[in-house]
């Protein structure tokens, strides 16, 4: 199979494991040999297979995850930029600042300043997935309320199909 998406699902599942491990510990070092071991793939094949599967090379993926985490910490905590750089896996503040600017288009300090001025109530924001997970409760409660106010909208004949 030549198209990049034509990959063996068994291989993809093992590559996903490497991606998961980077997600879980993006502050750690993830050289290719370590990732290849997680995926049970040869080092020679790992980077290419990963890029075919997820659209970006593993190293770039890791940097993106680190920047995401750093962005969250800049927004949600009072940690210094130096602390954030080291907590998210950079060995030098300079590399962190440069990469951050390359990826986001602004410096860590500018992002923090902008976020601060934009936000008036500093509220602890849980991780995005968590809030997304809680969202259905909220919307269903709201729509339920609306429905009660509007009365029954759907008393059309019941169509039940047993699969």
């Amino acid at each position, binding site marked *: 199979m030549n198209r990049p998406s034509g990959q063996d699902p068994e291989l*993809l599942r093992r590559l996903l494991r490497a991606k998961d491990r980077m997600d879980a510990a993006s502050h750690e070092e993830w050289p290719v040999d370590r990732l290849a071991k997680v995926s049970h793939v040869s080092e020679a094949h790992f980077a290419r297979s990963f890029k075919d599967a997820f659209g970006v090379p593993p190293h770039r993926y890791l940097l993106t995850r680190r920047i995401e985490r750093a962005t969250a910490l800049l927004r949600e905590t009072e940690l210094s930029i130096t602390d954030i750089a080291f907590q998210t896996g950079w060995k030098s503040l300079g590399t962190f600042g440069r990469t951050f600017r390359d990826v986001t288009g602004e410096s860590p300090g500018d992002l923090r300043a902008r976020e601060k001025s934009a936000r008036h109530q500093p509220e602890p924001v849980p991780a995005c997935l968590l809030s997304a997970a809680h969202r259905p409760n909220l919307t269903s409660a709201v729509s339920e309320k609306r429905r009660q106010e509007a009365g029954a909208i759907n008393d059309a004949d019941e169509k039940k199909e047993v699969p």
Partner: protein
Amino acid sequence: MSQGVGVVGLYVRDQDEALEFYVDKIGFRVHTDAKNGDYRWLTVQHPDQPSFQLGLFTPGPPTVDAATAQTLRESVAKGAMPPLVLIVDDCRAAYEKMRARGVEFTQEPIDRYGSVDAGFRDPSGNGWKMIQARRARE
């Protein structure tokens, strides 16, 4: 409750493997396991949630053609399917129990302002968040 969502399906790579995972490792029960030729309608459910079934289906004919099935199998294996959420009373206890049974966790339990969540995947690649909601919400 007589109206509402009854079944939501997942794509899995192997129904026997998925059955073993969701029943023996997660603690669900089989609701329906019916074969019709090559087609197998398999649903499981949470013991506390009799009105809802989780379908465990393999992509393939007659539902989808072979090429589409391959694409779907790849998507599942890449973890590209939508997120799933399991609500538990005690995330850390459930984590310990499930991990001892061999569940692949992608995230250890993390406290977030009173709620606790962890992440795991089924053997096919479907990703779950396991959430212990904040107590005493009003």
